[in-house]
């Protein structure tokens, strides 16, 4: 904190002050010490590093840490021991451990105690400035100037007061028998910037605490056309909860970049149904959430359910060259017109792969590599099983069929994955962040500038002593101070 001591030595004949300090004074001194604050900051910074090197619960795979230790120690036994110890002392959920919270608590205490201890003095400097300039203060001032004006004292005072007013300094005055005093200041609030910044950090902590105590984070999946109020609490995958209202997914869509598999954007059209009453549908996408009743829904993922499969197969009669599109919605049997060939859909694999025994299987419900297994029933009563690859239409698993078959389209019902969040502390966080940015701005880029003037009649003229200081950006202030002196001098000369 930027502070200048404004102490004057006690009069020599005053009795030595006896002050009994309260018992908790050493504690206060400890917490308000800047060294404690700096050390706390450094410790917090250092300990945070651990959590960026080791995978943390709910973010990464904790099991990966064992591999990391193995790479590091090159010995499975020691790696396991290091893993166990790290787990016990909370290195895999470092930012939720008691000692991390204790450090944040120490930092908060330090912030609060130090601010409360210094605020009264800052307030005195701002609100009750010393108006009268003393000889010693003048000599100690970093900016000072003496002018001699051929004007009576009252007139010279008016000139100085006008110059201060023009410079934007709020002024106070004191009229004594031997001298007239003027004091002007501006930017005093800049001294509060640092308190605002410190307070904002406490606000952010409080906001975070509110969110973690009263809020929740969860995930929900809704299939197109379906309605749900079930959410899965995050961090506790097995625990389901019920929302006080229902959400229906009317539609889900993905846009891809031209020519690629890369999704450009994905959208869900959601309708909130609260106690049987439907609200207008809202289309959400990544970076555009839906909010209802304080609960936010974020578009986070999507996928195919593997239900409601639809496949479209193009069959070309090799004799006539005539093509036919056949649509399958289940395991029905359809005839290719004019050929006597019938196709029976056996199974659709959205994400085709082969398992260890070489049997066809689907790795997921996502349409990454759709393959249709089709039984081709020939007019002579025989049948052949063929696999149709959507991504490789050239690949034929069976030769010599009278029809050429390709899987042209494949779809299944999609689900939308939503992040569901309720966080009552988030507004406290944003208020804190805003306050911090403004606080820093005032603390760094505005300065408290003060000017003292003493006017005294000396042999028919008025002697003007000017002194001034600023708590920041002092070079700039020196220029301003010189301009102020020049202005008083110029007006005084012109009138005198």
């Amino acid at each position, binding site marked *: 904190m930027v502070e200048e001591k404004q102490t004057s030595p006690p009069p020599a004949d005053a009795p030595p002050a006896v002050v009994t300090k309260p018992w908790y004074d050493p504690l206060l001194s400890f917490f308000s010490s800047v*060294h404690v604050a700096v050390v706390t900051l450094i410790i917090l910074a250092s300990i945070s590093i651990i959590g960026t090197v080791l995978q943390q619960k709910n*973010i990464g795979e904790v099991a990966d840490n064992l591999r990391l230790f193995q790479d590091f120690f090159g010995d499975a036994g020691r790696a396991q021991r290091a893993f166990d110890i790290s787990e016990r002392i909370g290195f895999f959920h470092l930012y939720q451990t008691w000692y991390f919270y204790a450090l944040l608590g120490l930092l908060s205490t330090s912030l609060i105690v130090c601010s409360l201890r210094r605020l009264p003095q800052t307030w005195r400097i701002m609100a009750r400035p010393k108006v009268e300039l003393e000889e010693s203060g003048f000599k100690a001032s970093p900016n000072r100037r003496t002018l001699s004006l051929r004007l009576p004292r009252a007139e010279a005072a008016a000139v100085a007061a006008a110059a201060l007013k023009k410079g934007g300094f709020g002024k106070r005055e004191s009229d004594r028998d031997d001298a007239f005093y003027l004091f002007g200041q501006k930017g005093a609030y800049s001294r509060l910037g640092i308190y605002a910044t410190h307070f904002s950090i406490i606000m952010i902590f409080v906001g975070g605490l509110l969110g973690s105590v009263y809020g929740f*984070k969860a995930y929900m999946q809704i299939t197109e056309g379906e309605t749900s109020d079930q959410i899965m609490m995050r961090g506790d995958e097995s625990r389901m909860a019920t929302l006080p209202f229902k959400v229906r997914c009317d539609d889900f869509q993905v846009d891809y970049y031209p020519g690629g598999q890369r999704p450009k954007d994905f959208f869900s059209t959601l309708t909130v149904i609260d106690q049987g009453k439907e609200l207008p549908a809202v289309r959400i996408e990544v970076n555009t959430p839906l909010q209802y009743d304080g609960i936010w829904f974020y578009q986070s993922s999507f996928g195919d359910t593997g239900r409601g499969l639809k496949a479209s197969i193009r069959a070309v009669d090799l004799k006539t060259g005539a093509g036919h599109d056949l649509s399958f919605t289940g395991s029905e049997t359809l005839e290719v017109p004019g050929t006597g060939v019938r196709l029976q859909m056996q199974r659709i694999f959205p994400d085709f792969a082969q398992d260890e025994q070489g049997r066809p299987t689907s790795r997921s419900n996502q349409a990454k590599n759709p393959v249709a297994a089709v039984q081709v029933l020939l007019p002579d009563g025989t049948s052949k099983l063929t696999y149709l690859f959507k991504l490789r239409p050239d690949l034929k698993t069976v030769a010599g069929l009278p029809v050429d078959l390709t899987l042209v389209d494949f779809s299944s019902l999609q689900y939308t994955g939503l992040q569901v969040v309720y966080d009552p502390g988030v507004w406290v966080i944003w208020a804190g962040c805003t306050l911090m940015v403004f606080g820093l701005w005032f603390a760094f880029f505005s300065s408290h500038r003060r000017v003292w003037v003493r006017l005294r009649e000396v042999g028919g003229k008025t002697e003007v002593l000017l002194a001034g200081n600023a708590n920041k950006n002092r070079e700039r202030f020196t220029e301003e101070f010189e301009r102020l002196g020049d202005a008083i001098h110029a007006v005084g000369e012109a009138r005198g």
Partner: protein
Amino acid sequence: MNSSAVFNVSLVLYLVATVAYFVYLAFRNEKVGLAATLVTVVGFLVQTAAIGLRWRESYAMGFGHIPLSNMYESMVFWSWSIILIYLIFERVYRNRALGVVAAPLGFLAIASISIAPNISQEIEPLVPALQSNWLTVHVITSFLGYAAFTISFGVSILYLILSAEKRKDAFYVVGMASLVTMFTLFAATMLDFLVQKVAGVAQPHLFAASFASHSSGVKIVSWIAAVGIFALFWYVGALYHERLAALFPGLRILDDLSYKMIMVGFPLLTLGIVTGAAWANYAWGTYWSWDPKETWSLITWLIYAAFLHARFTAGWRGKSTAVLSVIGFAAVIFTYIGVNFVLSGLHSYG
């Protein structure tokens, strides 16, 4: 003309400006100083135009996003920010002394990313989460902050080197080590570039021609060379200490400039973190998730907070705060680049 060619023009101009600022400091010739500023301003305008051009190119390709989305684009923007912060500083404080630090840093940032092998200069489409106006605000504020810290770091190195009385002074060693590290990293990147472009041998990764070579012989030679460069700089620097010190502004001015830059960088970094949190909250509903990049930006913030308290309240000056500025910058570099190479997380780059 394509944007990469325009970037190269600004690269050359920053190199010319670097030389001009050195000449200005050596002879204290105001005309040379003015010329240095003019060249820097022109280089900056050219670079701005190149960024605009790249932006337009991205629209022509059908993606249409501000060029702040991968390592290459961010390094270019870093360079741009360093020059911008410096030019504003020069104008406000009417002091050209920092040009000798800012111009070469601006040059190094684009030069190293332009020549580094395996850094894609392609314009890539954005994944859905990155398509947000928050991206622009978040990246711009963060990088302006990084840029201010970079200049402070450069000045602090100068301070540590120039303030030493003896070559065995630990602070002098730290300063020289930082300078030589930067120099060596750039030389190693240059070597990769030469081996790939001139000798025509493809380089699979960064420093493949030196420190990260598959041949242990090359590795050992590289390390010996690095230590040799350090020894040379360390010895010669102390030998010509007086003459070097006469070249640069006084120590008190350097100390003050370094701290002023941190005063500019700190609120910008704060804004960068806050806008990042706001964006994360808008995209995922979580303003803070202890992702390694987030945590490292917080670590950086804590170090500079410690710097400010040490300087303001505890009254530290000179060498000790200069060391804190160097440590802070190491954290910036780790946040920006290191996290992506060493750790895993949400950010595709800085």
